């Protein structure tokens, strides 16, 4: 049988496909300009001594300086401590609040969601001013009044190494749960009611239902919030910048703040770019580990 070569078909983009490409092109263009291009630029700048009038290539110097810099490693350790103290507690609090809100009527549920989400829409600077007032080191400060009432004396919350990190952690514990609560609530509402009915027929109590139904069903959500929470926590900048400036004695200097200082205080953009890429690598590594060990039986 003779086989004839099939004529090559020229794909014509028309109709719905053309419109699809047109819509996607806008998103791709914006992504390329504002995400891909800055990342590639940062990579190039990390090998340069950056100057607006002409940068010079200096190879791996910015990276070697970063790895030799004791302050960078101190900032990494501070960031890890901050992450370990804030992310798990924040997840637990969000989960607990979501469970408490779930049985409420829809209107009341919406009110609570709005209240918990409010700090997310408020300006970080405005919130910091309130927190600075709460952490006033003098005896008239709100926290100092509370600790004095319980006989614990007054403390220099943001001005001493012993309390500064704890103060920032406390800020994270008592705010910014809105997004996690909304996501957890959505996931809780997605759990099929038949599971609870079956458990009730078997005589399961509240905690058994929580442990055997809710926790496993929410595992994908928890993994998502854990990964994004750790990524966000590693990039933390605002609280340290506004509340302590990284002090005292660099006790609250986080990697994000260090990168900001190198870039915008000392104009060492090359070093800042190198540090930001090292930070990105650390975050990517941690995320991979999380997916490997926690995401085995998670399906999306």
């Amino acid at each position, binding site marked *: 049988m003779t086989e004839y070569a099939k004529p090559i078909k020229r794909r014509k983009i028309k109709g719905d496909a053309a*419109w699809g490409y*047109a*819509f996607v092109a*806008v998103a791709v*263009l*914006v992504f390329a*300009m504002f995400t891909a291009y800055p990342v590639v630029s940062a990579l190039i700048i990390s090998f340069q001594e950056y*100057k*607006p*009038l002409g940068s010079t290539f200096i190879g791996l110097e910015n990276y070697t300086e970063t790895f030799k810099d004791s*302050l960078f490693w101190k900032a990494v350790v501070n960031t890890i401590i901050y992450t370990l103290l804030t992310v798990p507690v924040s997840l637990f609090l969000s989960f607990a609040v979501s469970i408490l809100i779930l049985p409420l009527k829809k209107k009341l549920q919406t009110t609570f969601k709005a209240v918990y989400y409010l700090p997310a829409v408020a300006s970080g600077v405005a919130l910091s001013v309130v927190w600075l007032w709460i*952490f*006033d*080191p*003098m*005896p008239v400060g709100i926290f100092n009044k509370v600790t004095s009432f319980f006989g614990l004396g*007054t403390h*220099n*919350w*943001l*001005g*001493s*190494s*012993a309390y500064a990190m704890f103060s920032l952690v406390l800020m994270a514990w008592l705010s910014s749960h809105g997004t996690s609560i909304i996501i957890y609530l959505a996931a809780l509402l997605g759990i099929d009611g038949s599971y609870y009915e079956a458990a009730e027929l078997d005589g399961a109590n509240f905690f058994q239902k929580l442990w055997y139904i809710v926790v496993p069903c929410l595992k994908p959500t928890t993994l998502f919030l854990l990964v994004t929470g750790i990524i966000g926590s590693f990039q933390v900048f605002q609280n340290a910048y506004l509340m*302590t*400036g*990284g*002090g*005292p*004695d*660099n006790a609250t*200097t986080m990697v994000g703040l260090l990168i900001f*200082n190198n870039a*915008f*205080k*000392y*104009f060492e*953009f090359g070093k800042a770019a190198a540090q930001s890429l090292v930070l990105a690598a650390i975050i990517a590594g941690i995320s991979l580990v999380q997916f490997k060990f926690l995401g085995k039986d998670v399906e999306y």
Partner: protein
Amino acid sequence: MKKKMRVLATVFALSMALTTLSACGSKDDAKSNADDPNAKDTITALLPPVSANFQSNFDQMTKDFNAKYPNLTLKIEPASWEDMTSKLDTQVNAGSPPDIAFMGSDGISKYVQQGMLMDISDTATEEMIKDYDAAPLEYMKNGKGLYGFPAYMEAHAIGGNKEFMEKAGIDYKKVQKEGWTFDEFREAIKKGVVSEGGKTSRYGFVFATAGVTSKDYLGILVKSAGMPAAFDKDLKYAYTSKNFLEVLKDIRVMIDDGSMPKELSSIDAGKRWNMFLTGQTMITGKGLAGFERSAKLNNEKLQNKDASAVKGSIPVDYVVLPVPSFAGAQAQASVAVDGYVTFRGTKEPTAAHKANVVKAANFLSSGANAATTNNELFVAQITESSRKAAESMTVERDADNKAAVEAMLKTAVPARPDIPTDLGAKAIKLEDEVIVPKLQALIAGEITPEKMYDAVKSAAVSAFGEDGVVKD
């Protein structure tokens, strides 16, 4: 209908993207005129609220400038003090800074290192240069280059509550004239403390030291301890001197005496001014000349029972006091020289544009403009033309305070344009990464003065080498 909607959606999406991208475009090329000195030109200036009415005078300033130079337009971009640095840095790093920006002369070396400042030493006329006092003009230099004109030179002092000092038996008028040593100062602030039942209701001395303000605190004190700059005349790093350790010990001892609050490391500029106006402290720092005006304004509000007076405040007569001298050294006043700094973009400016920028910087920093602003700030005039313009203006200022500031300006720390930018940058980084964090720990009582001194010495040796630091 479906097709129309698609077209409409695409147009909207593309216009959104193009609008965003257009923000990345270059600014107009109005300044790229040829070398014709009479050609039309626009000079841009980024200016913060230097004084209370400064920004409301912008329209008049641009009109007056245009009347003086009809071919030139002065385009002023206002900025808040909070935004000033970030706005300027963003523009500098994008390669398109304003022609003129108002900033502290201590920031000049940073931008010189970037190559983004415009040296006007070959363009400023002899007549212009002669108008300025020599000392503040030197602060606008780096190496041999002149990078703008100074607006004012302000002494960093401390300020006292007249009534409290009189009650404590402090002869403040003598101090204003003759100065004081640290031991005399220490005794004086001890007398200012009021305590009852172990609780202090008034401290002798409160200086803002939270965050970066601690840099000011140490910077002002070390200048009166024989270290007027971070480098000595031989360009050796000075803060390894034993006098530096003495200052650190004195900083700690004032807290240990109870004359300063133990929470000092968290007290920012706003808090310590509030403490001063509410009678919680006898002497405050740092003290700027304008504080006399602020105190007077609050006194008037209290008298008129105006609700906007500081809550819990009392009437205060503000007294300007010099910083004490340390370790037997001569007191030298730390000064802040702010001015109109001249920038360049990525393109080489034409000679004509450069001359026009110089005209604008000179216009802003001298004559009636400078006279009005400096009078509002209660600072001394530093140009002949502004002194002349100020003759017809009245300033309600305490004569003793005025004389005290003038006496301090006579001992003002001279500028150091000889310090190379790379050395200066290293010193700034050492200050930010070692001195300030350690000072915060020292003030919080977490480390000893000796430990801080050793940390600074060790960092200085690794930054400048064994031979690059002072050994005494």
